[in-house]
């Protein structure tokens, strides 16, 4: 089959050797990727903060509808050797190429988009949501909360809305009016509805991380104080703040290489003794604030310090008092332990993972009755009231 052209014997052997080595190297490189994907896959992609895609099991139906093929493609993209290094390298290239433009266009203020986020001065933000986009879902969320309150007159319902960069045009200062929409639609007494107020870029910069969508130590403390006022409890005293400079890249910085790390701070409270239970059983503590403060925490993330998202958390101080239900998402991770100090028992439900972790859907009436809830507070922002609550809570 092979046809070898005539050439001087020495040159011919040399050329053939080079060509054969090239083909062998190429095939080995490609087959190594195939073998690794098939035989020794990773389970986590830490760089992207998600489980790794793995080679799927074959079935005729999945092949016919094309899902098997796309799952195979996803598996290769996560598992081939140096996949993460290549993604990182590409992100460095992509960001470095964009930075001069970001500086030029963003000079003097203004949003400069970069993939699915925006640069605004030295912060990574997102553009505001228009009221029309979320009005219907906010009204529906208000109706849902009111219906729960109506069905459970023995429980006092509260709403605490967290305004973020999605509620405010940072360029013009115009607000989307989402909070007013929600508060105006709720039938709850006005004193049981509150918000974290963000009226300007200065407010936003003070209360939120530069590279993450969450509130920072000042923001969560402000939220905690507001919630204490709303719920009528005395806030814990704060001994101060523990701050580690330039140690944190939030989730908005994922894939945006070259953005400087920012400070991470936690508020130092004197928490009372309490037990903490998650669906799989009791745990020593929720979050690792104490390890962070003692300098023993190796990697800094919002979840590792304040506690990872959990379908159901139960704090029990063992003291007499009321029982609280906190309904929310990751924002409440930073305040729930401090809130729990003011109650006998505190249940914290994250609807995004409740059904998966508990094995059954969340039903408000059953939950209130089963745990003897005195107060229920909904804590969240546009995603929570505009999506999660309706999608997961309407059972």
């Amino acid at each position, binding site marked *: 089959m092979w046809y070898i052209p005539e050439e001087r014997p020495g040159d011919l052997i040399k050329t053939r050797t080079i060509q054969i080595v090239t083909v062998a190297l190429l095939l080995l490189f490609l087959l190594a990727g195939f073998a690794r994907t098939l035989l020794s896959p990773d389970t986590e992609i830490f760089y992207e903060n998600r489980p790794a895609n793995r080679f799927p099991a074959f079935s005729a139906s999945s092949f016919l509808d094309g899902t098997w093929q796309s799952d195979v493609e996803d598996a290769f993209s996560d598992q081939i050797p140096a996949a993460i290094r290549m993604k990182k390298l590409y992100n460095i290239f992509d960001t470095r190429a964009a930075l001069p433009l970001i500086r030029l266009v963003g000079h003097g203020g203004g949003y400069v988009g970069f993939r699915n986020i925006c640069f605004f001065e030295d912060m990574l933000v997102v553009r505001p949501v228009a009221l029309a986009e979320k009005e219907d879902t906010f009204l529906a969320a208000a109706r849902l909360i009111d219906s729960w309150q109506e069905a459970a007159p023995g429980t006092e319902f509260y709403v605490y809305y967290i305004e973020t960069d999605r509620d405010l045009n940072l360029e013009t200062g115009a607000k989307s009016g989402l909070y007013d929409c929600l508060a105006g639609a709720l039938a709850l007494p006005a004193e049981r509805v509150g918000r974290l107020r963000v009226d300007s870029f200065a407010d936003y910069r003070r209360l939120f991380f530069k590279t993450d969508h969450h509130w920072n130590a000042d923001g969560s403390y402000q939220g905690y104080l507001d919630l204490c006022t709303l719920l009528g409890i005395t806030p814990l005293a704060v001994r101060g703040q523990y701050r580690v400079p330039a140690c944190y890249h939030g*989730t908005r910085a994922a894939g945006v290489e070259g953005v400087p790390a920012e400070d991470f701070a936690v508020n130092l409270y004197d928490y009372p003794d309490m037990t903490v239970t998650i669906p799989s059983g009791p745990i020593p503590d929720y979050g690792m604030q104490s390890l962070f403060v003692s300098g023993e925490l190796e990697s800094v993330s919002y979840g590792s310090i304040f506690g990872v*998202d959990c379908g159901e958390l139960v704090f029990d101080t063992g003291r007499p008092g009321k029982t609280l239900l906190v309904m929310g998402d990751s924002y409440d991770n930073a305040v729930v332990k401090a809130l729990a100090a003011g109650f006998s028992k505190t249940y914290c439900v994250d609807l*995004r993972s409740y059904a998966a972790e508990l094995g059954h859907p969340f039903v408000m009436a059953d939950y209130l009755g089963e745990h003897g809830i005195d107060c229920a507070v909904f804590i969240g922002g546009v995603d929570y009231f505009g999506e999660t609550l309706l999608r997961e809570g309407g059972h």
Partner: protein
Amino acid sequence: MSFSSLSFLYAFLPLTVILYYLAPSPQWRNGVLLFASLFFYAWGAPKALPLLVGMAALVWLCGLGSEKGLGFCHPLSLAFVLGSLVLFKYLGFFAGLVGVKSLPALLLPAGISFTSFQLMAYSIDLRRGQIRAERNFFRFLLYISFFPQLLQGPILRYGATAPMLGERSVMLDGAVGGLRRFVRGLAKKVLIADQAAVLASTLYGQRTLSGTSGLWLAALCYGMQVYYDFSGYSDMAIGLGRLFGFKLPENFDHPFAALSVSDFWRRWHMTLSRWFRDYVYIPLGGNRVRRGRFALNLLIVWALTGLWHGASWNYVLWGLYYGVLLVIERLVIGKRLERLPVLLRWLVTFALVNIGWVFFCIPDPPLILEKLRRMFVYMPTDWRALLSLDASVCSKALSLPFALLFSFPILKKAAVPEKGMRLIVLNGMHLVLLIVCIMFIISSSFTPFVYFNF
């Protein structure tokens, strides 16, 4: 399956190459290629595989019958292939012309335009006595389904392909050269076409922000996207063909270096142009007719060429645009064009081609007119607002100078003898280029979870 998918690069390609070269005889090697080709097709369109095999089987049977003097076989074969093409690709379009709006959506089999043109060419060539019918169905099926050219050409003629379907020799240099051509094609697609695509869609996507300069740049980016995508695919196909001992026809010859519209079409999608020339234009009388008929022939051929690209009015308009330009060039300007300075001829051709992309890219005729008006009646482009939408276009814009540079035949002139250290460097550069392409392919799967699992 796409050549630029990781499944192709990491599994399909190496396994097919290994099995092919381990196969003990030409029959086995054809068997490996046929199996690989059908699997390749089924990967992307499993439900369309029976149609592909069925069309090939009917045309093959008709070919045998036609050679035995059965007169109905040739029309039956053509009617079946053309009918399938119309049914699956154009039914909705034609139904829309007669006012029928609600037709059930039919699956559009991948590559049906290319496959049906190869099948029709086989049938017509057989009828003309230019080829002999293929006796072996599996070899015929391999001719139709050979995976390197199955989805986007080049369009093969049976007469030129048949000798390669039997015994064929593969030179080691040819195989490595084929791999290098494949990598260059992949680089065209991934490093240039896909990047230009983002720029084009950003510029076209903003109706209010893009003014005259923005829309000219959008047309340029779109043209680069189409050229590097399609010619990259052709390079990959030709490279893969060489790897398996096939010499596939060239499909592009630096069309953006063309000095006239006729020249552009001699260099762009050459196998399609030749198909229309041989099976439509010449049977209509070609240029050996009166001027009026000649113009009509050109317009018919170019309307059909446009329609071949897609079942939509904008493609027909795109084809007619070229038909009109060619009529003007041939019948009005004629030889006077050659007396103009080369730079001016190139500039005019380049501008005309870029205007053509507006028809190709935008499906809605009123919107086409709006874009064209903005291209010619000055309107400012809000570059600050446009660029602040997504600064990641910067890295994409880096591909543009390379796109422009490589659209001229500079590498042809830079060809070096492939020996010794030069060969090592050349092969090494292609391996590095492959890794860079994989880096770009993988980057599209970067999907961090922002709101969950901190």
